[in-house]
């Protein structure tokens, strides 16, 4: 098995799907000759040509809107939004069109498409290259929202997303593109189903729910607190919509305590949904208040390095939150 980066897992997954199904194509800003500003589509233009690796005009609404049109016709577009921060012009097409198409046509029309969205901070990106946008989309029925945190899941989930019959918002923790390495088998097909969460570290004292880059920080924090006798269970949610209630509830039934970590703003963030699920369905299992550790409620991540560190939850802060919750 080869150890590869998260972005390489992603690239391999797209390559395999382009190879497998000629209806699959990629569209986005700079995805062609440049191979994407993060190089996620590197080499694909050379391999599949400009008809299938399409450089779009600088207009996000049309990237998604054009994608929807091709999907209605039967294609399998992979639309890349260069940064999550730039997705808002396409919000109308994603939320009003892609998400609602199946329902509003009583199932006659479906939109099989993937919208790839590099998200998150920690790269010196300031207000408009650091945002987390999952809460907006996880709110919308008709969308699926996926966040891989490992090379294996990046590959397996992008392939499953391409094959999904509906629109999938595929959020990529861009800080981890090259930071996160992991083994991915070369001689077998890697497919990770949309939906199930993954228990990445079993524990008994409390459950920590996270996704993307935060999942890695949570694992790091869990190892630190283990030295203090706290055995934390860490769960990589992987799919935010539809969320894996069963795994969440089973974990909290075991531990009685839950911490949710995300770098998106606290208020109305995705953690609120997990907290609400636990409040409604696991009240009798709770031994402590559900806690959220999230980015502060400022408009976005500021640029300067100390500002960025202030904004992003890290292993230190997560470990502290775990210890506080464990001590309750």
């Amino acid at each position, binding site marked *: 098995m080869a150890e590869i980066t998260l972005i390489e897992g992603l690239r391999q997954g797209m390559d395999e799907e382009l190879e497998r199904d000629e209806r699959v194509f990629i569209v986005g800003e700079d995805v062609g000759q440049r191979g994407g500003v993060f190089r996620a589509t590197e080499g694909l233009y050379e391999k599949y040509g400009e008809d299938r690796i399409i450089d779009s005009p600088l207009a996000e609404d049309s990237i998604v809107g054009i994608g929807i049109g091709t999907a209605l016709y039967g294609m399998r577009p992979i639309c890349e939004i260069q940064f999550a921060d730039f997705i808002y012009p396409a919000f109308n097409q994603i939320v009003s069109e892609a998400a609602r198409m199946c329902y509003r046509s009583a199932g006659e029309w479906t939109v099989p498409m993937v919208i790839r969205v590099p998200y998150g901070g920690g790269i010196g990106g300031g207000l408009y290259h650091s945002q987390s946008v999952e809460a907006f989309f996880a709110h919308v029925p008709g969308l699926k929202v996926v966040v891989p945190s490992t090379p294996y899941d990046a590959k397996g989930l992008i392939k499953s997303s391409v094959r999904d019959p509906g629109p999938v918002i595929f959020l990529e923790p861009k800080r981890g593109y090259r930071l996160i390495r992991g083994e991915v088998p070369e001689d077998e097909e890697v497919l990770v189903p949309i939906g199930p969460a993954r228990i990445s570290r079993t524990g008994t004292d409390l459950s920590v729910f996270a996704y993307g880059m935060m999942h890695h920080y949570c694992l790091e924090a869990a190892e630190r607190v283990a030295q203090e006798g706290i055995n934390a269970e860490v769960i990589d949610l992987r799919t935010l919509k539809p969320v894996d209630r069963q795994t969440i509830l089973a974990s909290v039934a075991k531990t009685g305590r839950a911490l949710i970590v995300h770098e998106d703003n606290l208020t109305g963030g995705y953690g609120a949904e997990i907290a609400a699920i636990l409040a409604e369905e696991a009240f009798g*299992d709770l*031994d402590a208040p559900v806690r959220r550790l999230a980015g502060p409620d400022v408009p976005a991540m500021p640029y300067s390095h100390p500002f960025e560190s202030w904004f992003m939850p890290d292993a230190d802060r997560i470990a502290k939150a775990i210890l506080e919750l464990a*001590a309750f």
Partner: protein
Amino acid sequence: MSTEVIMPRLGESLVEGTVTKWLRHPDDHIEEFEPLVEINTDKVDTEVPSPATGTVLKLYVAEGETVRAGTLLAVIGEPGEEVPDAPPADREEGATQVAPPKTADQGTPKAGRDGLGFISPVVSRIAAEHNVDLSQVSGTGSGGRITKKDVLAYIEGGRSAAPWEEPGSGELFRPTEEFFGDKPGTVPEPTGLADTVLPLDAVRTQIAEHMVRSRRTSAHVTTLMEADLGRVLAHRKEHKQSFAREGANLTLTAYFVAAAVEALKEVPIVNSSWSEAGIVLHKAANVGVAVSLGEAGLIVPVVKNAEQLSLQAIAKAINDLAERARSHKLVPDEVQGGTFTITNHGVTGSLLATPIIHQPQCAILGIGALQKRAVVIEGLSPSGEPEDSLAIRPMVYLTLTFDHRIIDGGIGDHFLGIVVQRLQSWA
């Protein structure tokens, strides 16, 4: 102007008491300081004197009912005075002492209804499902809150203890929740027509709980030696009169206490208790002396700082404690704080017993019945040759039951050997 009578707080660790008998009833006249009610707390029965002279207007707590310290028990006043029908809600004194301390942390547990601190949903659910009395569970959470782990450990502890016990060790050693699982007032069905059920009173319940907990807690090991009390008896005969003049009834128990204290001084590890943090060595030798109350059970008043007391002072202390124990006049602190215990089970004819350690102490000394026995005396002939002889001696079996977690067999034997040696060489 009426005066309220409340359930007193009879010791630092006591939070409740049981009304065992009302000595006055509504419309009875009572003088200030006259006994009004008998109450029972953890191992202590006592009378509560009236706080005022007047007429008993109303009693709020029935006999047999257990209420928290601070609860209104009765009102004394002028005949015809208005009194409330029901006691006002929660007027417990010192509630903040049992509630978990408040900290600045967000989400600090709030004081719960029952002084147990915040009870989380899952703890509440588990307690209900397993019929756990949460007041029996010690909390390790924030501010002493009972956590899910605590209640699970409590349940699990009871379950896992049973297989550890010696096989066939009897009904006494059933898991705790089987003893206390039934809600107060519920009585198991008699198993046959001729069977009757004796309701568990507070003393019986407390003894049972303590005994089971001790067997579950300590690694009990018993070592046996015998002692020739000839010299002790001679000493006693010689000094009984003079001691009596000083107001001390010189009992054999006083000698055992004195001998044990000597041994505790030489082997201080026995004067200890187990804790998760480590073995706590006690400076003071507070020796508990078990006193039978007949059918009313057993009580263990404590001779405090016995290492500083003469034989005479020990004798006096024992006399005083025993006397007040039998007349229910002990105050709770007099039965607490022991670091070592002596049980003189021989008074009821027992030659040999393996008593249960009084938690959280390390050991308990058991004294069998004094018995004249033929013993072989190893000696020398007038010519200096070894020559054994047979003699009739006042003998007693001594057992030391100790917690093998704290000390090993050799130390136990060493300790008990000192006791024997001290008794046999009394002068």
